């Protein structure tokens, strides 16, 4: 068989120009797929990162009534036992405690329906929450009477840093509660719903104002590895179920924002259509090259068979030629695809002229491609399989040649 391998290799080198064209089709196709996947993977990673840091974190523990992130009914009655569970799991890096309620924010001239979010600045830093300060500063643990709102909301309300705003809401027992706060800063997340209608207070302040005592609305979790989220959440569910008390839910970011998860799945599905198209073109290129090279070499195959080369060995020869072409092309394709992905992964691709603020919230102005090794091997597998499959037809044709007829051909 080594002699057939040698013949296959030399046949590829014999028509260098044609082999090079075929090889570049394979490498360009594969390289493009690898880069496309890296681009998508990077963008998706950024989307998830942005959503989790600005809104959901990796997972949350919420009362059953609070499954929807914008719903504000229901509280965690016994946060201390949850804290103990969270601290005992080393896979949970950090967690932040939040209070969420619905209310109204009023200035001298304007009133707006709003979410009231009570948070702990130190804990939020620990779970890597992202808030871009637009004016003033972020709240610190000392700002017992301070508040922060979205920059857009500030503009609507017509207030300035240092002004007083009045926050009114229903407390735990259903009574109306209200308090004045000093505006210390404004923020922007890129998410209009947050930027137009959220007032941020310190957790103890919100608890006092709403008569919650020690109660909380949710725990936001930072989990060590993205791959562990599902497992950690499942373990937490088991532990919390055994606790009794208020019925609580543990939700991953995917469950909190199902639309994003669906979008990612949809994009991945679209990619398969692109893969199918690209690989069909690549396979057609291989088929064309092999067919041409076989028509040119009819006499040669005739001679080889006359000398005692078996039909199966002829098939082996042609399939090996396809395999070698594909291998060289694939190697080059991986180098190109990974190379381009790494380059842009470092420098980023500027999309600022295409994206609006909403998508800015999702991706940001720059996309940083990220090589997806799993897909890379998947693409390689499919390229090899499809090219080997198409090479069987010309191989079979060559093996069916009648030696004496083939040798008589003028070519």
């Amino acid at each position, binding site marked *: 068989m*080594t*002699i057939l391998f*040698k*013949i296959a290799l*030399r*046949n590829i080198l*014999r028509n260098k120009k044609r082999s090079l064209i075929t090889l570049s089709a394979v490498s360009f196709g594969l390289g493009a797929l690898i880069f496309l996947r890296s681009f998508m993977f990077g963008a998706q990673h950024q989307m998830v990162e942005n959503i989790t840091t600005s809104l959901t974190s990796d997972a949350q523990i919420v009362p059953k009534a609070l499954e929807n992130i914008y719903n504000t009914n229901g509280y965690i009655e016994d946060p201390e036992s949850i804290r103990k569970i969270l601290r005992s799991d080393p896979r949970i890096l950090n967690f932040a405690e939040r209070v969420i309620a619905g209310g109204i924010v009023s200035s001298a001239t304007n009133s707006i329906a709003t979410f009231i979010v009570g948070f702990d600045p130190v804990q939020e830093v620990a779970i890597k929450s992202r808030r871009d300060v637009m004016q003033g500063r972020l709240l610190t643990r000392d700002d017992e009477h301070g508040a922060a709102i979205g920059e857009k909301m500030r503009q609507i309300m017509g207030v300035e840093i240092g002004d007083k705003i009045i926050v009114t809401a229903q407390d735990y027992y259903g009574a109306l509660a209200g308090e004045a706060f000093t505006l210390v800063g404004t923020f922007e997340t890129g998410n209009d719903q947050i930027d137009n209608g959220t007032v941020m207070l310190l957790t103890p302040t919100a608890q006092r104002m709403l008569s919650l005592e020690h109660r909380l609305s949710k725990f936001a979790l930072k989990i060590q590895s993205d791959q562990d989220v599902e497992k950690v959440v499942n373990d937490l569910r088991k532990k919390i179920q055994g606790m009794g008390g208020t019925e609580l839910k543990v939700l991953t970011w995917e469950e909190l924002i199902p639309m994003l998860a669906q979008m990612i799945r949809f994009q991945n599905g679209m990619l398969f259509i692109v893969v199918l198209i690209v690989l069909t073109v690549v396979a057609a290129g291989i088929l064309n090259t092999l067919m041409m090279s076989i028509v040119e070499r009819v*006499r*040669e195959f005739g*001679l*080889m*068979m*006359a*000398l*005692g*080369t*078996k*039909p*199966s*060995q002829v098939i082996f020869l042609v399939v090996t030629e396809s395999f070698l072409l594909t291998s060289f092309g694939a190697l080059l394709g991986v180098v190109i695809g990974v190379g381009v992905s790494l380059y842009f992964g470092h420098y980023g691709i500027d999309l600022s002229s295409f994206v609006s603020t909403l998508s800015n919230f999702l991706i940001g102005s720059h996309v940083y491609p990220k090589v997806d090794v799993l897909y890379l091997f998947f693409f390689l597998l499919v390229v090899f399989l499809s090219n080997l499959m198409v090479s069987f037809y010309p191989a079979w044709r060559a093996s069916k040649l009648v*030696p*004496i007829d083939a*040798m008589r051909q003028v070519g």
Partner: protein
Amino acid sequence: MTSSQISLEGVTKIYHSDGLPVRALDTISLKVEKGEFVVFAGPSGSGKSTLLHMIGALDQPNQGKVFVAGKNLDDLNPKQLAEFRLRKIGFVFQAYNLIPVLTAQENVEYPLLLQDIERLEREKRSMQLLERVGLLDQKNKRPGEMSGGQQQRVAVARALASRPEIVLADEPTANLDSQTGSSLIDLFRELNEDFKTTFIFASHDPKVIERARRVVRLLDGKVAA
């Protein structure tokens, strides 16, 4: 079944040339015994080459039977025919004899490689034969770098390398100068006597014909009287 090494019984082969049937072989019956040194002589178009192809299992008759080395070639499938050609027959064709991407030495060793003969033995045989045909210094050249005569001699070396029972050669001296041609015939005679290898040539070269032990004259697809 017959005891002759080669036995043709009423072999007829009809080709279609421009839609018209041409009788290349017309009910030929012929026996060749092991160790014979035969020339099929006749003008071009007399059926010499076709007859060689029948014996070498490269072509099938429309009528009649071909027995070679105890086998009815009609009973063999393409894989068995390939095996038969590989083990029993050494071919020298009229033209286009060599695999273009292989060197002279690799071409000589090709049938040995298909037979899985080990490297040292392959090299020993190919070197000996290339020396014998005067091409040892050309062993690393590819067919495209050699003259027609040199290619023909490489093909002879290849046909002999696997030590077949039967060597079939179609105009083996056609591209050679008379001295080389005659030294090739010497080599064939020697192998014929030493190993009882059967040699069958198709030729109209008088120098080949005069050295044959048996001459079968063909005319219009028939054995001439």
